[in-house]
């Protein structure tokens, strides 16, 4: 039986929307997968249409990372949930110093979601994966009733391989180490926030969403002894530093003046009463390395397009309280605490 017999009429992507049947496991789902997902992601593993992907791996240290993506709105300046879901997991894999190889992608679709929007998202994922040289090799699709989802949620899981001699983990941060940041903070979170309904801001802010594994590869080549890498996503720079401090049992001392931050992000923070230190990034990384290697690492970062504005922003210290403290631009000191609760716009 030809595809033509199996699916005599093509999906009406221009006008159609997700119905419960698209998740029922039957012919409608098979068609959605074939005409939308397979078409966009096309590769040898997906083409088998098994419920898993198989591939050969050399003996190695493997890295596995997963993230669910639930961003609202789904489309935002500089990106969408599709490319974000690819970049996010690639980055979590890359933060072990690994080369990401394969992605799995699982979709939870809300009944009524326009197929045209889904296509845009899936093509954005496909493009992001292609650009990153990573294949989306297996996946899953579920549909939930209207009012039990939010358009589309995408969970991606990635695996990658770490080169011999590289051991990167938050627990390795130690007093004396330098703390480096790859670029300006707060752009993803502010780009998304500026698009929320009821917050009618017009800004030039674009999400920084990007795959960082090539930057990481350049960094690891320059300084194989990087102790720690982390992408400061939810909770922002502040929370990522506190997590590392807690995991490694150290403190940190930052220089506010050294932290790259663009004017519109600062300005929107002032409007909304939000501190950019707590705003999500999706294309930035923190690196912690021996102080002696810091300049070399910085140079390697600045040589890469995604690290041009990299800076040394502070150092790791011994501190039983695991505090992250910061010298302010103004000349005083403040604690940089974990994020408490969510970042809500405030009036006072």
């Amino acid at each position, binding site marked *: 039986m030809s595809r033509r017999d199996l699916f005599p009429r093509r999906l009406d992507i221009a006008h159609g929307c997700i119905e419960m049947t698209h998740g029922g496991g039957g012919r409608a789902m098979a068609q959605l997968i074939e005409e939308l997902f397979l078409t966009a992601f096309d590769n040898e593993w997906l083409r088998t249409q098994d419920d898993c992907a198989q591939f050969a791996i050399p003996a190695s240290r493997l890295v596995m990372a997963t993230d669910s993506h639930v961003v609202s709105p789904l489309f935002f300046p500089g990106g969408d949930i599709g490319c974000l879901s690819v970049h996010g997991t690639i980055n979590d894999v890359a933060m072990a110093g690994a080369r990401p190889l394969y992605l799995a992608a699982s979709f939870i679709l809300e009944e009524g979601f326009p197929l045209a929007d889904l296509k845009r998202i899936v093509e954005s994922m496909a493009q992001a994966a292609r650009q990153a040289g990573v294949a989306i090799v297996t996946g899953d699709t579920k549909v939930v009733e209207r009012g039990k989802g939010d358009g589309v949620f995408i969970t991606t899981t990635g695996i990658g391989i770490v080169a011999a001699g590289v051991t990167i983990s938050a627990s390795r941060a130690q007093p004396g180490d330098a703390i480096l940041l790859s670029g300006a903070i707060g752009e993803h979170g502010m780009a998304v926030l500026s698009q929320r309904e*009821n917050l009618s801001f017009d800004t030039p802010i674009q999400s920084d969403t990007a795959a960082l594994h090539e930057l990481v590869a350049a960094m690891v080549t320059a300084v194989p002894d990087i102790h720690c890498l982390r992408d400061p996503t939810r909770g922002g720079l502040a929370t990522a530093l506190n997590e590392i401090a807690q995991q490694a049992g150290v403190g940190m001392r930052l220089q506010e003046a050294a932290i790259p931050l663009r004017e519109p992000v600062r*300005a929107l923070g002032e409007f909304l*009463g939000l501190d950019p230190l707590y705003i999500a990034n999706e294309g930035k990384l923190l690196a912690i390395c021996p102080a002696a290697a810091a300049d070399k690492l910085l140079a390697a970062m600045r040589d890469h397009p995604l690290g041009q504005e990299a800076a040394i922003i502070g150092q790791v210290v011994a501190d039983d309280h695991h505090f992250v403290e910061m010298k*302010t631009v*103004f*000349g005083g000191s403040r*604690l940089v605490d974990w994020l408490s609760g969510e970042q*809500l716009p405030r009036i*006072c």
Partner: protein
Amino acid sequence: MKYLDEFRDGQLAQGLAAHIRQAVAPNRHYALMEFCGGHTHAICRYGIEDLLPDTIRLIHGPGCPVCVLPSGRLQAAIELVERERLILCSYGDLLRVPGAHGDTLLKAKARGADIRMVYSISDALEIARAHPERSVVFFAIGFETTTPPTAVVIRQAQQEGLRNFSVYCNHVLTPPALRALLAAGGEVDGFIGPAHVSTIIGSQPYEFVARDHQRPLVIAGFEPLDMLRAIAMLIRQINAGEAIVENEYTRAVSAAGNRKAQGLMEEMFRVRPTFEWRGLGWLPDSALAIRPEFAEWDAEQRFEMPPIQAADHKACACGEVLRGVKHPQDCTVFGTACTPEHPLGSCMVSAEGACAAYYHYGRFRQAAAS
């Protein structure tokens, strides 16, 4: 950012700090209270204390409308939204403030109440327009700064005949609170006066501080250089034995304030004979209610909102903190039973609450000291 960055300059800060160090009299202590939570927040966030000599002690005042909202009035809003199944719109600041038994708007929302965070009261009006079949209540809080927008929107609702919109009015007034603090005594040598409240009411309403209580007051912007200069101005007055009202924030504040905004407030609101403030108790003439002419847009007149007595947590020292009698870190549960994740008092919630400001920005000082 024009008119912000210049007022945060680190070089100038060093100079102003040196000026203050020079200006303070040897062997004299200065207890200065900043009325506003905005000032408290700036002190902690910029680390202003690091630049001041030890002889200057900054005392944090009650000027955070979120902190002084009594838990009973918050609980009344929770009960209203859950009972009437209406849409309650609120500024983000209120969502985590504890009502009775640690209940919050955020928890009510998680239980299913339709509580929506808005950036502006205008957004609440927009929600009412978009949902003619639902009743929409805006939870109004704030000092004189936030009150005029509320007045504008109520008038707009009246003009449009929008009958599914009303306001739960919790607007409070700054001068009566300052008067109550002064009446209670205490050892404050001078006051840093409100910044943005004063853009509306002007500097004139603070004259009683100097005239009746012989305390200097300097109105200051919320930027850290403004605060340093205001401190210097207070030191000068104190050293000179003067007690006048000065205005450091001349770029935004005049003696008379914004008369149009004052007119709008006057048209829309009457002064309540008395009103409860968390920490300060019942203060006469200290809050606003919507005038009877606009009863239709007054949630307290439209719905049954019986007064709720919600006892604050036994261990909570918010009252003393708000009156400047205790420092946040003097509270026995600060940072242990009371944290921003599990606040026992409102001062640990609001970004401008003194406890929250110290917790988020200043905890390392306590650790270093201990």
